[in-house]
């Protein structure tokens, strides 16, 4: 099953990806014939039940896990694409030997990127205020709550102004009350930058809110079940949730997952 390429130049493509997983003595095919393209500024959500292969698909696209067959084709040399990744397993996403502050600023040390420290910290302050979260940056990551850890990871990925943002259930541990604040900031960022997004989530409304199309995986078959286009347009504000079209899309995706 192929989902249509965006109108913009392709940034990264997955072509005919297949992957099996060893479950005890059983070899189970979790992904098969998966083909899609992410263009510059494309926002793609992946939904599906537990064990449908969302995380594996993201890791394959990230280049950290090889597919059994098929290819990941980046438009530019892989290392030259600026990627930011928020893994599902947020507890192991930090370097626990470094302070939260050091963890937060690490990608910028690596790039040696032009952004000044003061500028970065201001960006951090602004966003964390918007999320109504205040974290003692001198602490170690394991001293934060799960939700705080996730928010810091998401913040870091947004601060790095990536070409592609790969998010694996980025808000699963964040309380319901805070999610709208973060969604608003995410939309804000996506409205003003050409960032591509690949988002895996169990939150169907989130999947629709942040995407141009939703790829639905299911557990019974390793293939893509369907791809649902989200014609809500950009720029997008959180108020889009109250539109009838939004409710219809959420219902359609839910229906596919039943």
């Amino acid at each position, binding site marked *: 099953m192929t989902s249509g390429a965006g109108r913009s130049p392709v940034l990264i493509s997955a072509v005919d990806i297949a992957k099996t997983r060893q479950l005890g003595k059983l070899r189970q095919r979790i992904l098969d014939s998966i083909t899609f393209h992410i263009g510059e500024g494309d926002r793609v959500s992946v939904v599906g039940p537990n064990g449908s292969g969302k995380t594996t698909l993201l890791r394959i696209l*990230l280049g950290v896990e090889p597919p059994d067959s098929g290819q990941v084709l980046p438009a530019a040399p892989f290392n030259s694409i600026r990627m930011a990744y928020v893994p599902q397993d947020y507890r192991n996403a930090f370097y626990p030997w470094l302070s939260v502050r050091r963890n937060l600023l*690490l990608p910028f040390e*690596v790039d040696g990127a032009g952004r000044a420290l003061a500028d970065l910290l201001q960006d951090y302050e602004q966003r964390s205020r918007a999320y109504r979260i205040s974290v003692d940056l001198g602490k*170690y990551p394991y001293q934060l709550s799960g939700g705080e850890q996730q928010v810091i990871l998401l913040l870091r990925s947004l601060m790095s102004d990536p070409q592609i943002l790969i998010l694996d259930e980025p808000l699963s541990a964040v309380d319901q009350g805070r999610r709208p604040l973060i969604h608003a900031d995410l939309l804000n960022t996506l409205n003003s930058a050409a960032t591509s997004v690949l988002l895996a989530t169990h939150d169907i409304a989130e999947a629709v809110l942040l995407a141009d199309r939703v790829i639905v995986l299911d557990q019974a078959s390793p293939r893509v079940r369907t791809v649902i286009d989200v014609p809500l347009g950009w720029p997008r504000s959180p108020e889009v949730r109250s539109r009838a079209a939004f409710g219809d899309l959420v219902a359609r995706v839910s229906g596919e997952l039943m």
Partner: protein
Amino acid sequence: MRRAWPWAVLVLAGLGTWHFALTLGIVSRAALAGPEEVLQSLPSVFSRGGNLDDVLSTLFKSGLAFLISVPCGVAVGFLVAFGGPMREPAGFVVDFLRSIPATALVPMFLIIYGTGDNSKVAVAVFSSGLVICLAAVSGFQSRNSTRLAVSQAMRLAGLRRVLLSDLPEALPQIFIGLRAGVSLSLILVVVSEMLIGSNRGLGRVIADMRNTDDKGRLYAAILVTGLIGYGYNWLLAKIEKTVVHWRGLA
């Protein structure tokens, strides 16, 4: 607050068993000194006129050997773990060398380094370095797959990657090797002091006292080697707790 009485009970029970084993003749007085004799001999082990020089010499040699073996073991472990195609054969060589009882190599080190302190330190470095190396290899190999993915996405590379990611990632395992290494350093220094015609060290005191039949001092010297070994491990556990502060928490 830790209760004192269970400790007192244990110490008294130990001393009592020791005392009665001798008075009831279960163990011959020709083989074992009584607790009073050992306690009486203890000050002479630590006195200037007695064996203080030997205690300091053993401390110095084992400590030095351990301190040399740490960077060597970790560096070689790093090279083996990231040796690509060389990893398996190099790992085999390290594992094989470690399997040779180091005491069997004492004559070789004696020929190379002579009968002085150098040969004892060398044996201990060899043995301790190899266990640290093996622990480091497994530490550098056992990487958390999520963190690996994140550092790859961050394009962490080169020396920065080694210092910020690879080395700390391996530290918990390396410390297991350090604990084994520090014990081995002490064991091999003491054993080689006994084997090689040396003139200083607790191993030499133990061998001499057996020959001169001064059992009080013999067992006092053994007690002191035990105290040194315990002290090393205690110190290392303290350092580990500070350095690997995330262990069990992340």
